[in-house]
Every structure is written in structure tokens, then in C-alpha cells.
């Protein structure tokens, strides 16, 4: 795999040991059977049902019976009126939220690993929203962002600003939800970045200090390259999360007003709710392909850069 660094050249002492294990055949120190237990869970409860469901994408399926209709579901899905809007919204939402999570997450992580007061408090506070369920967050912000009674607009009115209909203005709703998504998710990005930052040996910074590097140079030349595994993780997780996300959108706007904050995920979910199970499965296949087309090359690219470091 691309993440695997080439094995260190190996000392004379270790080489024979490795050769021994080779000769013994299966007795690698990294046995393949380590995949087995996880593989069983995954195969039985994910691969099998998912494979079965993909077959249903080719059928008209009402749960009780399925009729093979070829690719009609896909044709129907691409005719979905809210689909174009949904695709645009999905990309806007995913890139906006994952971009914000990477930038803010790294900034917060740098801040929270530096020598500042109340570091523990700040870490807890930033991470706290991750702990609250999506429903809890959705309900709370729906109330806070209410255009008339909501606390946000009440505060704005104290300073003479008439707040917008955060979730009821068709041109704003998606961005409001994205903002809440960042609010809720940035703590996780920060946590992953903190774990990455503390793994960077302090010696590098000490050496850089001797060379007279300033803070920005430190960040640019040491922190950023060495925190890359964390960046890869955050980018992949938040982009995938953003591309298939719909639960927060669903709790806060249900894709509305009208269809204005619909993303692919919510379009699919609505088909599912309406009982068009074959159609919604076809939508899932399409979504999978779209995400895979973005994520697989991106993942390979990000991981390759790691090796060339």
C-alpha cells in the first residue's frame, strides 16, 4: 500500500530473523489472519447486504417483491427534478465544510498545542459539540436560528441589524446548515490534528530554532509536512462525510425550503421514504460512484505525496 514506507535498510542482526520467517512460510510477523476477524464482520454484515441491495437497484422493489427492470431506475434517478440542484449543493456543501474543517482544525490544533492559558478548557469546549447527537444539535440550532424568535436574530436586532431567515431563505439555508456542520465537526478535525502534531518530534523544532527559523517557517517547513497523515485523514473523512451527509440537513431543513437545500443524500432518502426502494438503491449506487471517482484518486494522490517526502 502506498502508505507503507519502504522498510528500513535493516541491520545485519535483523535480516536473518526476517529470512527465517520467510522460510517458515506463513510465519510473517504481520500475519494475514489479522484481517480475518474484522473481515468476517465486514463481509457478513456489509458486503453481503450491500451486494444484494445493488442487485435491487436493477429492480422495481417494494420490499415484498422485486421486478427486474434493467437500468430504468438509473434513468429515472437522473430525471429527478431536484437532482442537478442536489449535485451542486452536495459539492458546495462538501468542499465548504471539509475546507473549513481542515483550515480551522489545523489552526485550532496549533493553538491548542501551544503554550496558552486555559488549554484544557479550550480543548474540551472545542470538542464538546462532537459529543452531542446530530438531532440535539439540529434541534438546538433550528431554534437559535429561527428568523423571528431565534436568539441569533434577537442579538442581531440589539445592534440594529435585521437578521435573515437563516433556514427559511432559499439562498441561505444550505450555508447555514454548512456552518452548523463545521461548528459540530471541527472538534474532531482538531483532535486528529492534535494527535498528529504531538507525534512530531520536538527535536526538529529545536534544530530549526538553532537555525534561526521563525514561527511561520517552522509551520511551513516542519509542521505542515509532518502533520500530513493527519491532514490526509481529515480531508478524506470530512470530504466523504460532506459528500454523503444528509442527517444534519434533514434535521434542520428537510432539504427545504422547497428543494433549495437538497443534497444527493437527501434526494435519495426521500425516494427511500416514499417507498421507492429500488430507485433509492440506484441513487446510492450513483452516489457511491460519484464519491469513489473523487475519493479514490484523491486518496492515492494524497498518500503518494506522503512517500515522496
Amino acid at each position, binding site marked *: *500500500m502506498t*502508505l*507503507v514506507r519502504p522498510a*528500513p535498510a*535493516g541491520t545485519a542482526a*535483523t535480516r536473518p530473523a526476517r529470512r527465517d520467517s520467510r522460510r517458515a512460510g506463513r510465519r*510473517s*510477523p504481520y500475519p*494475514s489472519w489479522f*484481517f480475518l*476477524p*474484522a473481515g468476517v*464482520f*465486514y463481509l*457478513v*454484515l*456489509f458486503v453481503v447486504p*450491500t451486494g*444484494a*441491495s445493488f442487485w435491487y437497484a436493477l429492480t422495481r422493489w417494494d*420490499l415484498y417483491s422485486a421486478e427486474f427492470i434493467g437500468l430504468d431506475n438509473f434513468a429515472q434517478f437522473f430525471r429527478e427534478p431536484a437532482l442537478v440542484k442536489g449535485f451542486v449543493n452536495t459539492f458546495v456543501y462538501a468542499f465548504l465544510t471539509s475546507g473549513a474543517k481542515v483550515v480551522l482544525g489545523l489552526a485550532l490544533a496549533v493553538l491548542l498545542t*501551544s503554550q*496558552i*492559558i486555559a488549554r484544557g478548557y*479550550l480543548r*474540551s*469546549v472545542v*470538542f464538546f*459539540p*462532537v*459529543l*452531542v*447527537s446530530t438531532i440535539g444539535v439540529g*434541534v*438546538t440550532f433550528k*431554534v*437559535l436560528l429561527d428568523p423571528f*424568535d431565534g*436568539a441569533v436574530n434577537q*442579538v442581531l436586532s440589539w445592534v440594529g441589524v435585521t437578521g435573515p431567515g437563516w433556514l427559511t431563505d432559499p439562498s441561505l439555508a444550505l450555508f447555514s446548515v454548512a456552518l452548523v456542520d463545521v*461548528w459540530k465537526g471541527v472538534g474532531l478535525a482538531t*483532535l*486528529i490534528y492534535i*494527535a498528529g502534531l*504531538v*507525534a512530531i518530534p520536538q527535536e526538529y523544532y529545536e534544530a530549526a530554532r538553532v537555525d534561526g527559523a521563525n514561527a511561520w517557517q517552522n509551520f511551513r517547513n516542519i509542521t505542515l509536512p509532518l502533520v500530513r*497523515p*493527519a491532514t490526509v485523514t481529515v480531508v*478524506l*473523512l470530512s470530504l*466523504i462525510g460532506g459528500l*454523503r451527509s444528509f442527517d444534519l440537513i434533514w434535521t434542520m431543513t428537510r432539504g427545504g425550503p422547497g428543494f433549495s437545500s437538497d443534497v444527493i443524500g437527501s434526494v435519495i432518502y426521500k425516494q427511500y421514504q416514499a417507498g421507492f*426502494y429500488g430507485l433509492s*438503491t440506484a441513487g*446510492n449506487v450513483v452516489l*457511491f460512484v460519484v464519491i*469513489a471517482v473523487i*475519493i*479514490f484518486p484523491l*486518496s492515492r494522490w494524497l498518500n503518494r505525496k506522503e512517500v515522496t517526502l
Partner: protein
Amino acid sequence: MRRRGVVLGSVSILASTVVFVVPFVFVLLTASKSQQEASLLEFSLPTEWALLDNVRTVLESNDGILVRAFWNSTVLTVASVAIMTVLAAMVGYVVQRRRSRWNPVVDAMVLAGLIIPPAVVPTIWVLQGIGLFKTMAGLIAVHVAFGLSFCILLFRAFVATIPRELDEAALIDGAGPMRLFFSVIFPLLRAVIVTVVVVQAVTVFNDFTYALYFLPGADNATVQLTLYNFQSQGLNQWNLLFADVLLITIPPLVMYVIFNRQIVAGMTSGAVKG
């Protein structure tokens, strides 16, 4: 340096308080109001503090379903997170350490698992087929299967920070694969384990869709289902709704407070430096 820390810290405290704490204060205040006052949804102090009454009402609603739900959620979370953490660490470790023909497969599976949403009805059929439908074990297995991808992704990224020299040394000492992994590598993954445990515990604890479909029945309710029920009833009982939000946020919070120390400890011990 010291002064800058104070200034920066103060600014951060102020900003984070506005952005992150105020919404929770709002939840707390609303949860402390009477139903009429709460329905105005204003940001104000309650005229009479009714927090304890509201909490009691929530706890007693539906024959104390919340208490049972807490127990169910705890069992579910502990079991599924423990299993998926160990299994995912094993996979992430071997994938990172060894080039084999399995790696592209594992890699594709991990990404597929992150991308594809679970297929509900076929999953129920499988669970019925192996006799685990409507059982806690079944729901645990489902959470393990769906949570593995995320964990493997994280472990694979961070196993890379453990120098291979450690493996070599342990092997020379005569350690087998099992001992190498469980007594040498696994403890060194503490920082990322804590991350995985915290995140997955929160995910499992906060999930309600899987519970709704794979473990039906009032006796099996999880805490998120109680919130979902409160919300889907379309009642105007915002005080109780927010009291419920407050109550079910406490366990993850306690867990985080405990593990937060662990994260700090992991850092200072310099474990990852080897």
C-alpha cells in the same frame, strides 16, 4: 512567549465561549424553564428554576424508559467500540506494515465502507439468517461492521508513526506476532486509540437509525430513540426536549473528560516517539 500565551488564551476563551458555550447555555436555560416559558424560546433566565422537575419528568416518562435506555446504550457502546477498536487496529497495523496482495482489497473496502450507506432490509435478512435480529449482539455486530472502516483509516495512518525498529527488537526477543502486536504495538497506539474510542463511542451512543431498524421494541430502546420520540411527537414541550438533550449528552461528556486526560498523558509520555 508567556504574555503572548495569556493574550492569545484570553481571546480564545472569549471567542470559544461565544461560539461554543452559548448554545449550550441556551439548552440549559430552556431545560430549566416551565413549559409555557420554554415555548417562547427566548434567551433569558427562567423565572423559576424547574430543571430538576423537568429532568425527573423526562426520566419518568414512558415508565422510566430513559433509565433502561441508558443501560442499553452503555452495553451497546462499550461492547461494539471495544470490538471494533481491537479488530481495526489489527487490520490497520498489518496493512501498514506489510505489502501484500490483500492491501488493495482492504483499501478499497475501507473506502467503500465509508462511502456506501448500509442497506437496511438486506441487512435485516442477513441478521435473521444468522439468528441475531432483534438481539443486542446483532446490533453490536452491525455497529462493528459499519464502524470498522473509519477505525482502520485512522489506525493505518498512525501506525506509520511507530518506528519499525521496535518490531525488529521485539522479534529478536522472540516475540510472536500476537505478542508483538498486543504487548508492543497496541499500547503505543494509545493516542490514536483514545481518538478512535472517543469518536466511535460518540457515534454509537448517538446513533438512532440502526437501533430503530435492527433492535426494535420498547425494552430495547436506546437513549437517542427517546430523543427521537420526543422530537417526532411534535409536542411543544421544549423544556423536556432540551432536558433530554442535556441528560443524554452527559455520558459522552463524562467519557470525554476521562479520556481527555489520557490524551494529554499520551502526549507527555512521549509514547509516539518510541
